[in-house]
């Protein structure tokens, strides 16, 4: 616990409350405004306490939808998202969302009901060992076994979730604790612990490394936004003129149309970015973790580069690739402290600019069918600066990362580490509660949308104006692509040609919907989608054999990209 006691909120409960009421008041004391959940037996005392609370509760149609919505809310606001579920199946349905939040370092507090303490361990109805099941996928967890400790543990959960490298914290609340009387008292507020500042000697060494490098390159990851260091990062790039590549979660750290930005690196990165990494002699790694999708074969990744690693998490330094120097702690402060002065990198800047020119994306695909990359680019341009894109997982996710324009990291919500299909629509629900005036578009596929299709009902219930672009190739496209390329074309369980009529399905849920399949329909369809009132779905039939290019084969170096053989 940090300074919870010192920062006790003024609002003390006016009477004896139940544990459930105390939990709700403790959430209010943390500044929570919106929670996403689904009720059930063991959590009923908390839902009872929500009646009359100023908290806004969003009822999703599945607990996974609730936690993904809390995740989207957290990513857009930078504040801790909150989700509630009951015991047993309610809790187990949160597991994927917890793993997603842990993998992508998203601050979430998840509250689960539990059977009464005397029944715990008795195989009671809807009893599972939620604490044990979730241990590997949480940053920390508590069983709220003492009614009087609820305010302190709630505050501590919020402090832990947001401190350092953020992550999910689980609070498991037995039903008898939720119903027990709790004495009135002040409610503490959890505050994240400050991160260490960079040591002057280390900053001096890092500055010297940057000055000495002939081909320095910045490798930007999601840690920049998590650290609230986007402004410091952009200032650092402006000061130095260093070229930048980004991970999936680092997109938007600088605008993707900035002249210094070379693109996404890694498996589906663009060629300029990957070639620049391979040529670099210093990789300034900012809030990134050398994920296998970014590095390809680790031993062949940036083979000539020294590594300067800036991160909040000491355990990431040297985990995959040894660092020559690390600044562990407050990323924004570290970037602010790095002032190498004028750099003699003009020829390197020219080289990277030439790479960019030589490897621009092409949108001149043959045929009359809809070319998904071109559609996404046009959509992104038409939607404007306030666009937030939430993605599902698969080919469409990579196309969105490659071809949409992102001006800030909070504009691109994607399940990066876990790769959880079904993330997109619930994350869009969360994003719309985080930024009610924003234009939020979910890019999904015909496989992914079915993972959480029930959340269309949530969109309709709250009339959330989410715009959904469903790229339908009648297949699990990414798996099909890999089976084609790496398994000699033996297709196994990837055919989805018996999909439902998605537009009709969306209409049944209360959404406006439209289907297109020809290129000349794209412009009008985008206008229709962005102009539609309320939630709407654009069903786009695309070539079932379309692939995502380029592709670094597994086990290959990043410069060994497979590319489309179009003339």
């Amino acid at each position, binding site marked *: 616990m940090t300074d919870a006691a010192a920062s006790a909120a003024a609002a003390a409960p006016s009477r004896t409350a139940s544990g459930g009421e105390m939990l709700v008041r403790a959430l209010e004391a943390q500044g929570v405004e919106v929670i996403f959940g689904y009720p059930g037996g063991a959590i009923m005392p908390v839902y009872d306490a929500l009646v009359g609370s100023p908290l806004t509760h969003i009822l999703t149609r599945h607990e996974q939808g609730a936690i993904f919505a809390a995740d989207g809310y957290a990513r857009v606001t930078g504040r801790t998202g909150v989700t509630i579920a009951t015991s047993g199946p309610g809790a187990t349905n949160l597991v994927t969302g917890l793993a997603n939040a842990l993998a992508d370092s998203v601050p979430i507090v998840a509250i689960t009901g539990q059977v009464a303490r005397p029944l715990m361990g008795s195989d009671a109805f809807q009893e599972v060992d939620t604490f044990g099941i979730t241990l590997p996928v949480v940053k920390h967890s508590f069983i709220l076994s003492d009614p009087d400790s609820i305010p302190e543990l709630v505050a501590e959960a919020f402090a832990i979730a947001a401190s350092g490298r953020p992550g999910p914290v689980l609070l498991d609340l037995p039903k008898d604790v939720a119903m027990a009387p709790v004495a009135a008292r002040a409610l503490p507020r959890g505050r994240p612990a400050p991160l260490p*500042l960079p040591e002057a000697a280390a900053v001096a060494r890092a500055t010297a490394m940057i000055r000495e490098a002939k081909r320095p390159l910045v490798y930007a990851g999601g840690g920049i936004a998590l650290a609230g260091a986007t402004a410091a990062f952009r200032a650092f790039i402006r000061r130095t003129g260093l070229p930048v590549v980004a991970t999936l979660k680092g997109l938007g750290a600088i605008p993707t149309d900035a002249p210094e930005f070379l693109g996404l690196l890694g498996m589906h990165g663009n060629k300029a970015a990957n070639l620049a990494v391979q040529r670099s002699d210093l990789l300034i790694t900012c809030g990134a973790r050398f994920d296998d999708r970014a590095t390809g074969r680790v031993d062949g990744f940036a083979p000539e580069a020294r590594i300067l690693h800036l991160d909040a998490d000491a355990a990431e330094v*040297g985990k995959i690739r040894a660092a020559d120097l690390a600044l562990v702690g407050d990323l924004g402060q570290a970037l602010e402290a790095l002032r190498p002065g004028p750099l003699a990198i003009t020829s390197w800047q020219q080289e990277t600019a030439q790479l960019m020119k030589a490897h621009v994306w092409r949108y001149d695909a043959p045929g009359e069918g809809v070319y998904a990359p071109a559609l996404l680019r046009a959509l992104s341009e038409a939607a404007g600066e306030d666009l937030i894109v939430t993605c599902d997982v698969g080919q469409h996710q990579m196309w969105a990362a490659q071809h949409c324009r992102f001006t800030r990291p909070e504009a691109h919500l994607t399940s990066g580490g876990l790769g959880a299909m079904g993330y997109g629509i619930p994350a869009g629900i969360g994003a719309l509660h985080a930024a009610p005036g924003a234009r939020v578009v979910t890019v999904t596929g015909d496989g992914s949308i079915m993972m959480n299709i029930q959340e269309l009902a949530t969109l309709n219930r709250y009339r959330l104006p989410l715009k959904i672009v469903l790229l339908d190739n009648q297949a699990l496209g990414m798996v099909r692509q890999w089976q084609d390329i790496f398994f000699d074309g033996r297709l196994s369980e990837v055919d989805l040609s018996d999909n439902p009529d998605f537009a009709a399905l969306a209409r049944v849920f209360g959404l406006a919907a439209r289907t297109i399949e020809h290129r000349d329909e794209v412009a009008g369809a985008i206008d229709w989608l962005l102009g539609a009132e309320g939630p709407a779905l654009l069903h786009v039939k695309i070539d079932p054999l379309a692939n995502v290019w380029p592709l670094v084969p597994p086990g290959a170096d990043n410069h060994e990209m497979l590319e489309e053989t179009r003339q």
Partner: protein
Amino acid sequence: MMERFSILIDDSEGALMRVIGTIERRGWRVRALAMTREGNRGCRLELELARLPWHRGDPAILVRHLEKLIPVAAVDCGGRGAPPWTGQTPDRAMVPAAAGAGA
């Protein structure tokens, strides 16, 4: 090859499971374990760990993963864990943050 770890943990629920789980998930197996009470400081774990043959796990990295766990107060592995590039772990390597910063 065996590595010896000495870990001080508090007695909060799940503390032992978190430590063992982190070790196993990060590519190591527990070959021997002793746990003793250490006054009101918590419990001392003495472990002998073997790295899985296919895992590249570095004991220094495991030390830092263990140090992140909330119930873990201290980890010793023969001085490993301290980053070789600075000779110090982050909380020792950095000057203290200004009061209230980062809140």
